[in-house]
């Protein structure tokens, strides 16, 4: 079942996706659906503002390449700053999820 993205998780998902592979817009949104087993479906209305914001922040870099169907497409990749950001956000997320889990388990 598709779920609304939590505030802040979208950045992390994009960073994670691009850490494995350079992708264009539609590719990123498919990959996110795939790696979250269809839990998150990212609409262009959130995806593109996020991509542009992260690019302006220097976490992503972009170039124009060819898509699988031979179309001119804008590809995104992680910059070194983006990699650092991914590590930092991953740590942060793990801390939060452990905290949340223990909070929910306590009686």
């Amino acid at each position, binding site marked *: 079942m598709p779920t609304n993205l939590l505030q802040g998780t979208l950045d992390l998902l994009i960073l994670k996706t691009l850490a494995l592979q350079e992708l*264009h*817009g*539609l590719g990123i949104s498919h990959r996110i659906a795939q790696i979250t087993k269809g839990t998150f479906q990212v*609409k*262009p*209305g959130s995806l*593109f*503002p996020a991509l*542009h*914001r992260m*690019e*302006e*922040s*220097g976490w992503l870099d972009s170039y124009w390449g060819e*898509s699988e*169907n031979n*179309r*001119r*497409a*804008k590809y995104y990749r992680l910059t070194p*700053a983006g990699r650092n950001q991914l590590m930092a956000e991953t740590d942060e997320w793990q801390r939060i999820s452990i905290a949340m889990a223990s909070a929910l388990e306590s009686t």
Partner: protein
Amino acid sequence: MPLLTRLFSLRRNLFDKHRVEQELEAELHTYLEELTDEKVRSGASFAAARRAALVEIGGLEQVKEEVRQIRMGNMLESTLHDIRYSLRTLSRSPGFTGVVILALALGIGANTAMYSVAYGILMRPLPYPADDRVALVYMHFSPQNFERGTMCIADFLDWKAQNHAFEEPSVFSSRRMDLAGAGEPEQVQGAMVTTGFFSTLQVAPLLGRVFLPGEDRPGAASVAVISEALWRRRYAADPAALGQTVAVNGGPATIVGVMPEAFRFPRANTEIWTNLPVVPPTRRGPFFYRGIARLKPGVTFEQAQRDTNAIGQRIMRENPYYRNLTLPVERLRDALVGDVRTPLLVLIGAVGLVLLIAVVNVANLMLARATTRHGEMALRLSLGAGRMRLVGQLLTESLLLAMAGGIAGLFVAYGAIQLLRSWNPGNLPLIEYVRLDGPALAFMVVIAIVTGVLFGIAPALQGMRADLNSTLKEGGRGSRAGTGAPQRHLRTVLVVSEIALSLMLMAGAGLLLRSLDRLHRVTGGFAASPHAILTLGISPSDHKYDQEAPMRVLYDDILERSRQVPGVESVALSDSLPPSYQSDADTFMIQGQVLAPGESNPAVSVVIVSGEYFPTMRIPLLKGRFFTPQDKLSGPGVTIISESLARHFFPKRDPIGQHLKWSGPDNKVPYMEIVGVVGDVKYTGLQNDTDDAYYMPYTQVVGKRMFVVARSSLGTAIAPALRRAIQAADPGVTVNQVASMQVMLSQAVALPRFDTVLLASFAGVALLLAAVGIYGIIAYSVARRTHEIGVRMALGARQTSVLRMVIRQGAGLALAGIALGLAGALALTRLLSNLLFGVAATDPLTFAAVATVLLAVALLASFIPARRATRISPVVALRYE
């Protein structure tokens, strides 16, 4: 590193906008195509796939707008865009823009001018270093009861000896001084000061030095410090003026220093300061001196006041003549500003009201305009503009208008200040500190921004609430959209409050006008035409007149020669003049009067005159006789009293034949016989009721400074001839303060006239704005109801009934506003009561008059659109939709 990236993005977004947009377009397009391909591959037709893809994306334009909003420099860019857009829309409706800018220019301009005046007078730093540590010290005691009374040298010495609070107590006394030697003899404003005077004010001389310690001891050589103006005028700015001798009131003094132009104390026109040798006196009096001193570090004004009051208590214990004695301490600025603080504060409040009315007016216009723009707003919303973006756009427009109004207002303010300075009502203190400068400019900008936000907020919020569906569905019939009840309600409230505020201002102005009128009706107590009365101050400066006998001879000679001047109908001498030149006031005692120990009669005006004074001024004789040449020095002392004094002190008996004399400690002066009673004359200002006075003939009591009072139908034209006649008697006599009674009367009401003119012009602007406001709302309502009125007329309504219907609406608004305004005015005009003369702060006549005027203007303002309504042709009106 990230910072550099951001700056790079910012540069690209701002200066390479076209490419950025193209790339965004291409990126989204690819997304759409790829998504469509996928859907085709899974079996849909191309058209179905494309539609599904578009729905999934949710509107390409919206996505673009979302991306644009997160871009670097988005704020800056959209602001610039808003400004361009606003300029375009505003220039499309020049009438609206013009009216708004005019209203704001009046409001902001008046406020900026008033602020400059208030800042210059109340707040601008004085040219005296740390002036907030300088105090004036007065003496207040019964029976004199002068609020800022003076002390005598004995009091000064007591204060100085027991002082703990001040650095170096000093005293000064302003007086006219006759200058001779090097150039024409002339009389200037001077001051006698002790050494501490200059060290207290701490202003360095332009040239030379100020007084040295010891120069105020008995027997010290006479020295003088002159003003820059006098130095330039009399000595052609020659440094060699230092060391020269100038004759001051006949005695030689050496010039030791020149004070810079900015040094203007104790009076704005003081031009010479001489050293005051403090000779230990044998008695208490005369009371000529005010104290000035600088607080010791760490001492507050309150502590200083306690210290001086304790000293006052001791002085009083040792001198039973004083009662209720205090030594009031006042800040230097308060002393300089004096009585104008209250009027200024009232005027500031009033001008603030004017701005408030202007803001309400503009808000109203903006609201009316906003409703016609609902279609535009709804369209922009549906095309993906954010609501905040729209609000920002509308606020930008308001701020632009406000700024334009502010800049136009600067011109208004500049003109107003020039006008004010050139018209300078004479006794407005510190007017030379009033100018349009940095602080005034900053004030204007702040005021403009605040007003812009104030009048922009309502239309902006309205814009934000724009309802997409209903507005678009109405098919752009903008004039009917958004005219819902809440909006109309808000506009009505605005107009009503505008009327109410105007009424309050008009009530204030009306009261001041009535009061000024009353003041103009105060005659001063004489029946001669003020235009026909000419007065010339004379002072014999030579030491040969230290004796009384030669002085009397001189006065006789001057009178005799003046009588010969062609055109002079009658001429006399007096040492006091109406309306406000009181030369002396003192207490008196009546022979046979029994007073409780320590009690005494109040101080009254004491006037020395020649016998012709009363007929010259046409002051009525009520009983007895005038002075005659037979009232000689060798004969018995005689006096004439005023009607008020007779009424207060001889209520049930005939004053003629009674005796009185001035009271004071150790008084061995003989009593004078009362020979006449004359009408009351004002010597302490037209506003005051202190008309008790007694007169003495110059043949028996000599005054050192007198005025020649001449009556002539030629008015001031005879002044040169009179001056020549006076100086023919003795060339050493200086003639000064030549003025017609008309000018003196006019000066006496200068300050009240100043308040009145200003408040009346504020009220006029308010009335104009209120009229525009009413006109606006009625005209708008007529336009909105064109259809309805057309139907009524088609159904046979007569023109007069349509006229009545529309005017009734305007009258309703006006009456509501007037009722509210009257309530507000009743509460507020009490603040004016200190400025009023002979009129109650709640004068019903004034209130009724201003309410009538306002109602009439309101009816007129609604009559114009009402007449337009009657001309509506039913056919046109019905087709109008």
